């Protein structure tokens, strides 16, 4: 879901965990990040629609990916989406 949403934007989107940065449009890269529920992640973007992309992804995290059983923003799974948009 994350990858699908990220892929809708033209900008480069990066997900960072403990200094390790991966392409947010690559499911394999994200999987190998080993981020389980409760992991602190940092999102950043670069490109013309970067700020819209950041908002969209942040919304996804806040709503627990709209998964069944998830009740809105799980505080443990909250991203630190205060990402720096460089546009």
């Amino acid at each position, binding site marked *: 879901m994350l*990858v*699908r949403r990220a892929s809708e934007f033209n900008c480069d989107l990066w997900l960072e965990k403990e200094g390790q940065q991966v*392409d947010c*449009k*690559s*499911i*394999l*890269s994200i*999987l*190998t990040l*080993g981020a*389980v529920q409760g992991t602190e992640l940092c999102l950043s973007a670069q490109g013309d629609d970067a700020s819209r992309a950041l908002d969209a992804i942040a919304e996804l995290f806040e709503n627990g990916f709209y998964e069944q059983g998830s009740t809105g923003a799980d505080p443990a799974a909250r991203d630190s989406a205060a990402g720096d948009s460089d546009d």
Partner: protein
Amino acid sequence: MVELHGIPVSPGVAIGPALVLDDEGYRIPRCHVAADSVDDEWASLQSASRRVATQLENNRLETARKIGASAGEIFSAQQQMLQDPRLRDELRRRILAHQQSAPYAVSRVFHHYAQALRGLSDSLLAERADDILDVERQLLQELGAITANPLGNLDGPVIVLSHNLTPSETAGLDRRWVRGFCTEVGGPSGHTAIVAKGLELPAVVGVGSLLDRIGGGTEVIVDGDRGIVVLDPDQETIENYRRRLQNQASLARRLAQLRDQPAVTADGVRVQLSANIEFPHEAATCAERGADGIGLYRTEFLYLGSAVEPTEEDHYNAYSQVVQTIGDRPVVIRTLDLGADKMGQRPLSEQEHNPCLGLRSIRLSLRNQDLFRTQLRAVLRAAVHGDVRLMFPLITTLPELRRARMLVNVVADDLREENIPHRADIPIGMMVEVPAAVLMLDRFVREVDFLSIGTNDLVQYTLAVDRSNEGVAELYQSSDPAVLRLIQTTINIAAAHDVPVSVCGEMSNSPARTFLLLGLGMRSLSVPPQAIPNIKKALSDVTIKQCCEIAARVMELESAREVEAYLNERLSHIAPELIVT
């Protein structure tokens, strides 16, 4: 031409084209393409990728319809993996810049990701590795690089090369086409080796890194006599090996003439020469080769060879077949020796840190009594058809032996109450394969009808060597003086108490060691069926006096190396014909 050295585990020579299996059990076509065809290679990968995407979409819709949308999501995750931009970049780079073939690039890149996932501590994420490898497999199939089951639809002779083969994989090899095999890892007495002998396939294990050096179809020679594997041999080498094959065939024909003669030494001492088997069909081979009986019937393969746990009837039918084939000669059935490197369908024990010292063999049987009783019932029932004897493996303490014997009594009572034909009075014996059993043997002999020395485990437990660890396999020597002293002690105590004793490990399999065992007082040997003619011939060339001289000299030596060198020297004097050249 490349010559590699490993551990010979099953004798004979095989020549043929290689079938290379990777860890997941299929071919790795490691190759590069010409610079002017990299664009075609990339295009073929893209079209294969589109076909896989279509399949995944069909799977997704089908699964969603049958089970529900969330189950279908598995396939949409796989679709995303297939279309992953990073993956695509990496594949493009390998093919266009490094001229790798599409299948090879796919195999490397997907394995890279799968490995990264497997390394994660979260088990849910680690399991996604299987999804990745599943996409890889489909891509490779679309590229025509693999068939669904490379071993399942062979149409010509092959030599199987792989990192490792499990015993059940070995047992499942198609005997019509597989001529021999060679693995990167493995030790001299692992059960894969034993199965290879059972199938009479030349095999060499533990040759080290091998798969990187070879592509499918390359000519390979497996020399299971000397532990040599030759990749891409030159014409002269092939000719040499062809000549050896012919010599061996003519020796085998001459040995076959000994078939109906009893095993006796040159001075007329009769030796009981029985056979070790794992599969019921081998009983016929034993009868053909003139075995005096089955000295060790390993029953694990009932469990390893099929997908479901064997029933009492499965046990009973297999045992009855063996007993009826072998006629009035004795059949020693050993109860389950599962665990350690052999496992059945159900997880009988937890992951163990030290499985060789763990819950295996008789310990596992005593812990899983439903399984054990099923087997004991079948043995007592099959005993009405002939001379059946029951043997417990890995007995370490007296209470263990008593508990196992008591279960036999319980099972016999049940059968009597149920009015099922059986025999309750069959001889019961134990394997001597733990040093503790040797130390307490004067007590054990009062409670058993016979003993059988299992040299494989005895060596492992005496010398503290994991027999499947190629790092220490060198230390694993059945002619180590410490092991020989334990064997000597066992024979002496058995003789003093008039309890029959035999040797059924792989040790009795070499003519030279046979001389030593005879010299130590052994008069009963159980060997792989194909070794019977050889051993019979060796016995006919030697006198007990010579054997005693050999044993006296050997017991003064201080290392396995000295023992081996001396024994080989004696063999070349006494029976030069049997030395493999």
